[in-house]
């Protein structure tokens, strides 16, 4: 049994969700967990006592730099973006000397993070008790297929290419519909409302909505979730947990995944059509259980921590 301290900033982000899932399943595995913000003394969860291991998700309080406890930095971000935002990569490199190792969740990132610090690869898992198929869902969103976009819209993270892709999908699948959720920025909303009107996308876009409280319910109301992220895929794999297909240009680390696509409208469209035409050939829930179970992530990461105790 270990006492694990997670350093995490309170932010509405995939990083926070992933950290919380790790903490929950570490507890279920019998470990004691504490979550702290780097700049605050009071934990946001648990008790800081006899810490065995530090897990860095956002930053580490300098007070702990030399406490002789093993320190692991979880690489939630993507290396190019970390350079691109002008801050993260520099901070990661500066912090590397006080860490024992990095932990990454995508195989493609290993060469980059390994150039800075020894890096271990673990499964990118999700909470399969939370993201799960629901029985008796009758109020499905419109479309055959009903396609959902629900990324965290910001900057270049937007569904423009997916909207163009859906034009092509509609030529082959006239009943296909797109539902855009998690829109939180007014300028983005104005932009897409203008595009929908000018390009007559109202023929296939049926929703332009903000965040939803129950994201698992939303997954259960559609056929597939499509991301336009590249080269990462972030939290879109939650759809698999709900038993739905997930398509994303960054999802390419499994050789047996048949719907690999590129970040261009034509490639996205082909993947959506191919997925719909072969929809029942894959049990998406089983796919998640075998490849994206947070229990596996915790088992693998705890085994790494133990090597350093």
């Amino acid at each position: 049994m270990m006492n694990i301290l997670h350093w995490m900033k309170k932010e509405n982000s995939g990083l926070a969700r992933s950290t919380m899932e790790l903490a929950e399943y570490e507890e279920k595995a019998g470990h004691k967990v504490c979550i702290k913000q780097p700049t605050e003394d009071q934990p946001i969860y648990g008790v800081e006592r006899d810490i065995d291991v530090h897990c860095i998700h956002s930053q580490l309080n300098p007070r702990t730099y030399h406490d002789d406890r093993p320190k692991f930095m979880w690489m939630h971000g993507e290396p190019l973006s970390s350079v691109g935002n002008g801050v993260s990569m520099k901070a990661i490199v500066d912090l590397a000397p006080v860490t024992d190792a990095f932990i990454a969740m995508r195989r493609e990132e290993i060469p980059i993070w390994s150039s800075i610090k020894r890096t271990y690869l673990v499964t990118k898992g999700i909470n399969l008790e939370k993201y799960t198929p629901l029985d008796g869902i009758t109020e499905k969103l419109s479309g055959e297929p009903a396609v959902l976009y629900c990324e965290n819209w910001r900057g270049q993270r937007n569904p423009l290419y997916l909207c163009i892709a859906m034009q092509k999908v509609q030529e082959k699948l006239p009943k296909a519909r797109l539902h855009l959720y998690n829109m939180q920025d007014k300028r983005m909303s104005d932009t897409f409302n203008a595009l929908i009107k000018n390009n007559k996308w109202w023929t296939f876009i049926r929703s332009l909505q903000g965040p939803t409280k129950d994201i698992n319910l939303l997954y259960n109301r559609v056929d597939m979730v499509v991301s336009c992220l590249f080269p990462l895929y972030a939290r879109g794999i939650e759809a698999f947990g709900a038993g739905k297909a997930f398509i994303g240009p960054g999802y390419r680390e499994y050789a047996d995944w048949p719907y690999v696509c590129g970040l261009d409208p034509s490639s996205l469209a082909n993947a959506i059509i191919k997925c719909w035409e072969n929809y029942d050939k894959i049990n998406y829930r089983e796919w998640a259980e075998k490849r994206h179970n947070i229990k596996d992530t915790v088992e693998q990461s705890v085994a790494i921590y133990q090597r350093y105790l």
Partner: protein
Amino acid sequence: MNLSDLENEINEWGTGPSAMSAMSDVQPRNAIEFQNLRRTILDARSRGLEVDYAGNTH
């Protein structure tokens, strides 16, 4: 509070351009640099400008 309660709170927390950009918050080696950057960002935002985490306005 249990972890599920905390997880339910996430939607109420603020968002940033990148959660990893939180790396800048307590970076002691470059405290002055980051403070200046933070000031630039907050100043730009207060003037209604869109600004990225490198301090560039658009």
